[in-house]
């Protein structure tokens, strides 16, 4: 079983996030592994751990990121959880990529990994917490020509088939797909493990493979700013809210709340 887990390097949602020149500020001081990709890593690890020993021996989990060099933070975290390899695709030509450029780079990297041997599963998080697009997994599946099973809540792999259940806005669904496939897991799919001391130590010295756009045969015009089909022309912080009007309930708090809503014509 070979599994590729695309992981994104994003600003920590607990930190102050900002834009610089209309791009997400990827300040290393606040950069981290997209938390929802921990669920993807956990899903991959569990699938491999459920195999028999001989199959585990030949299995490989590769964490893959399209990011500037600072993005190694995300791969180190993936090593700490237990993945075997880390690959970073970095290139000035990739800066400013939109969904189509990011997907093209991720798909090209999966194809390159495939020259070494088949990739059975690509497992992503349900969303990157910076842009909250939730569209890269489906785009990746379409680009690779594989079935896509997204937002999975339960996952099982047996006899070359992926089985999953999910909750969509409209329904509860059960899906199956033959491998190779692309899977995205919801935050409800599992509880990501904490790395143990041994893995944390080992993660420090693991080598990160670095590929460029040229290594992947990406046309410079198809990715980055040049290939983008949208252009962000303005990014501005919202004006600060006036301080909260805080009422201590001494028996009249509900009345004060109702009056506030009535006064502002909100009910």
């Amino acid at each position, binding site marked *: 079983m070979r599994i590729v887990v695309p992981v994104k390097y994003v600003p920590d*949602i*607990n930190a102050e996030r900002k*834009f610089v020149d*209309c791009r997400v500020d990827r300040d290393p001081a606040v950069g981290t592994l997209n938390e929802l990709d921990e669920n993807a890593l956990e899903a991959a690890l569990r699938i491999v751990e459920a195999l028999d020993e001989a199959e585990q021996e030949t299995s490989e989990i590769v964490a893959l990121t399209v990011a500037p060099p600072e993005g190694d933070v995300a791969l180190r975290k993936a090593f700490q959880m237990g993945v075997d390899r880390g690959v970073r695709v970095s290139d000035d030509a990739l800066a400013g990529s939109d*969904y*189509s450029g990011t997907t093209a780079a991720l798909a090209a990297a999966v194809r390159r990994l495939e020259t070494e041997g088949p990739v059975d599963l690509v497992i992503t998080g*349900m*969303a990157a*917490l*910076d*842009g909250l*697009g*939730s*569209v890269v997994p*489906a*785009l990746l*599946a*379409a680009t690779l*020509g594989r*079935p*896509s099973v*997204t*937002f999975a809540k339960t996952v099982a792999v047996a006899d070359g088939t*992926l089985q999953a259940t999910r909750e*969509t*806005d*409209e*329904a*509860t*669904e*059960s*899906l*199956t*797909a033959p491998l190779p496939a692309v899977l995205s897991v919801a*935050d409800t799919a599992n509880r990501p493990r904490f790395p143990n001391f041994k893995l944390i130590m080992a993660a420090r010295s693991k080598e990160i493979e670095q590929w460029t756009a040229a290594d992947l045969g990406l046309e410079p015009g198809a990715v980055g700013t040049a290939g*983008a*089909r*949208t*252009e*962000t*022309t*303005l*990014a*501005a912080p*919202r004006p600060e*809210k006036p301080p*909260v*009007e*805080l*009422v*201590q309930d001494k028996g009249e*708090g*509900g*009345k004060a*709340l*109702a*009056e506030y*809503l009535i006064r502002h014509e*909100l*009910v």
Partner: protein
Amino acid sequence: MTNRTVLVLLDPAGEVRPSVLELLTIGRTLGRVEAVTLEAPSVEALAQLGAYGVETVHQAELPADLRGDARHLSAVVAAVLTAAVRLTDADVVLAPSTFGAKEAVALAGHALGAGVIIDAAGVAEDDAGHVVGTKRVFAGSWDTVSRVTTDVAALTVRANAVVPQPAEAAVATEVEGFAVAVDAVLPAVTARTEKARDSDRPTLEEAAVVVAGGRGTEGDFGPVEAFADAVGGAVGATRDAVFEGWFDRYIGQTGVTIAPRLYVGAGVSGAPHHRGGMQASQVIVAVNNDPEAPIFEICDFAVVGDLSDVLGQAAEVIRAHKQQA
């Protein structure tokens, strides 16, 4: 350039939900609006489409094996949107910002070479005639403006972007079928159970008023629901409350993203994950018994107190006020 053709996704087609009425309203500011469906629209839906100025509904005719549960797969919806754009030579595709529609719009954009904007909070055009989407990002703390640089633009738009407005004059609406081939590699849908929708309350995604309950309810959503009904709002929860089994749908970055006129959080601490899905609300109100609750930082108005006392009393005053009016 208002001679554009704008396609609005209507799926399901049994009713025209408020979020779709918003899209039709937005669409009319950009050009002529037409609807795309994957099934026959109901009589009520057709009447509403007519009132909103839609003369043509393009109803997809799917291959027989995709007419069942598989037609809800985003790759199938994407194939329908792609074919509809090619058929009508449309310039803009608009869909609501549900997880499924986001995928479908992105996939259609991919197939068409179109620029894609996900989760727009507003759609307009700039001086050069480009379609422009505004977004509220980073948990509502930043606004961005992006323009689509390709001929075709595909966007999903969050609910409560505009107030729905019928067209000046209603029109007659015709349904035209069109054949759609799907060449995507699809998973098999082995089971599908549609969720029952609470018809007495507005849906969480679309409501103008949302009341959310958190861990502070200690499992009793009674006061939250009673207050929501007094103000005519939808009910939501935090992820923790859903994990406890107290309610079924949560608001937040990984749950439902909302931007209503009014959000009321009761027994909700205001964790970053929760904020990410509601901080773009116009007015934020909270009831929490901890004077240091982080949610107060983003509130317009808040009461420090026990939620059942405060919500109960507030509901009573509001009901009395409504009876007078």
